[in-house]
């Protein structure tokens, strides 16, 4: 089996592979920067929590509209934003920290979602909500993903500086202009919208994997925010491509293959990454040790 058959042929022969690849590309463009910002803001677990928070909204959308993309997406988006807003409100008004109020609300949301689905339908419907498949991306889903990616890039380009400021030194921003909350909310909105797009293609749990793993892996290679984001997107795209090929040649389920590959990339980066990778640190300690003993 030559390289062409291995890498190119599956995409030439099958439309569903091509569509899946395009979906991965669009997802990577959106998830890369968003995931990077989540990581540097120390909000890595918010991604997963938010994915669960999408559930009741999507469930209500499903109950009202069946497997309709529009219904589930709008429902998920509204539900996710609502949880974010409520958590933010509680954090501001009480002495609760952001992570505690977020945890409280996303768990409430998750339970509500499961309850709604079991009241209305069987658990297999819930299962399909949680694990979509990238092999069944239809036109509507592709358009949604593409739109989300464009929107993400546009908004981030626009609010880049105040967003970084808000991430890094929110008190300073508050003293200067007082709009910190707005940028924080815009950012959370971007997280929700990328997860909504992702869950249509990969399911909520896998979508978070594609958002967080490349971003955490990138930290072992790059230092600037823009290069981190770019690298995260690149890793996400390559994992999408690779995962699809593994699923194709190795007969493994596609979503888990993609995310597992991203996991492998993370582990490899952890070990050999030049910035604080295990090997680099070991080498560093050896060098300082030998310097001090000279």
């Amino acid at each position, binding site marked *: 089996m030559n390289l062409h058959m291995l890498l190119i042929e599956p995409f030439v*022969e099958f*439309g569903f592979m091509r569509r899946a690849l395009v979906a991965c590309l669009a997802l990577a463009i959106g998830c890369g920067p968003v995931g990077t910002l989540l990581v540097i803001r120390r909000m890595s677990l918010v991604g997963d929590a938010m994915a669960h928070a999408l559930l009741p909204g999507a469930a209500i959308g499903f109950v009202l509209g069946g497997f309709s993309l529009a219904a589930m997406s709008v429902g998920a988006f509204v539900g996710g934003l609502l949880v974010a807003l409520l958590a933010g409100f509680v954090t501001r008004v009480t002495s609760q920290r952001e992570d505690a109020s977020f945890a409280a609300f996303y768990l409430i949301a998750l339970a509500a979602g499961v309850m709604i689905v*079991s009241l209305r339908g*069987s*658990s297999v419907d819930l*299962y399909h909500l949680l694990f979509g*498949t990238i092999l069944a991306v239809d036109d509507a889903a592709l358009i949604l993903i593409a739109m989300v990616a464009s929107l993400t890039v546009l908004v981030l380009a626009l609010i880049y500086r105040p967003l970084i400021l808000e991430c890094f030194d929110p008190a300073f921003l508050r003293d200067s202009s007082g709009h910190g909350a707005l940028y924080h909310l815009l950012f959370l909105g971007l997280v929700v919208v990328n997860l909504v797009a992702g869950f249509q293609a990969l399911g909520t749990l896998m979508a978070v994997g594609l958002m967080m793993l490349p971003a955490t892996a990138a930290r072992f290679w790059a230092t600037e925010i823009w290069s981190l984001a770019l690298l995260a997107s690149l890793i996400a795209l390559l994992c999408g491509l690779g995962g699809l090929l593994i699923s194709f040649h190795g007969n*493994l389920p596609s979503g888990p293959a993609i995310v597992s590959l991203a996991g492998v990339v993370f582990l490899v980066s952890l070990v050999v990454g030049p910035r604080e990778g295990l090997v680099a640190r070991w080498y560093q300690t050896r060098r300082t040790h030998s310097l001090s003993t000279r």
Partner: protein
Amino acid sequence: MNYSHLFFAKLILALLVTCSTNVTAAPDQVRPLRVVASFSILADLTRNIGGDVVDVAALVGPDADAHVFEPSPADARRLAQADLVIVNGLHFEGWLARLITASGYRGPIVVATTNVNVRRGRGVPDPHAWQDLRNGRIYVENIRAALVNARPAHAASLNERAEAYGAKLVALDQATRARFTAVPASSRRVITLHDAFGYFGAAYGVEFLAPQGWSTDSEASAANVAQLIRQMREQRVRAVFLENISDPRLMLRLVREGGGVIGGTLYSDALSPPGTAADTYLRMFEHNTATIIKAIAPSAATAPRATAGAP
């Protein structure tokens, strides 16, 4: 005063005793046998054989998937109060053992697939034995024996009903065979999402292709989907069937790319809700057969088809 108190006490006691003895001494044979069947098809069979003698409830109802069923406390309660439990067996109900333990049910459990000729697919036993009407008769026999055992007084009527129903199954089996034989072998290839029709295919000579294993809780791999599309193109399999318990998006994708046509909905693991096309075992079978034949028979060949290889 004391005497009147004593008198009232005795009166009440007497009333209580007569009431309770009325309840407990009444022959068990009078009230209907409470049967809990694991899923809708078994429930339907039991009702047909048992008639008034039984009061049947199904745990996994119509349009529900027994593979991913999650029992609720109400199910445990129903089980606790049951006299008889009927299950499919062959690992169809993965959640059942725990539920039975949890409910504290200690009565008899009838495994409907006892003595069935088990088919093996992909290395494990295929539980969907009811898809072959001959196996259906074995199911009926097993259920009949259990019911007669529980209600010997009604043995006569039970046997009669079982016999009548069995005859219907035989008739349907022969009719189905005839219908499929009429269709040329090369056309007898269809696609469903779910490998539930192994027995059906083997019995009536239809080849069922599917991109997944036979449980809905495993995800499709790209290789599966690709292989299926290749087959659809090469072997010109055109009829694709949706199921009442799975995600239609993957099916639609297959149709677009493989150049097939959606033939309709097939009912595999569950009946449809009461009042619809496949609400009993017999009607489900007739519906499935009719739907498949309609899609693959020559008259359907002139139906418009999607272009093969569409992105």
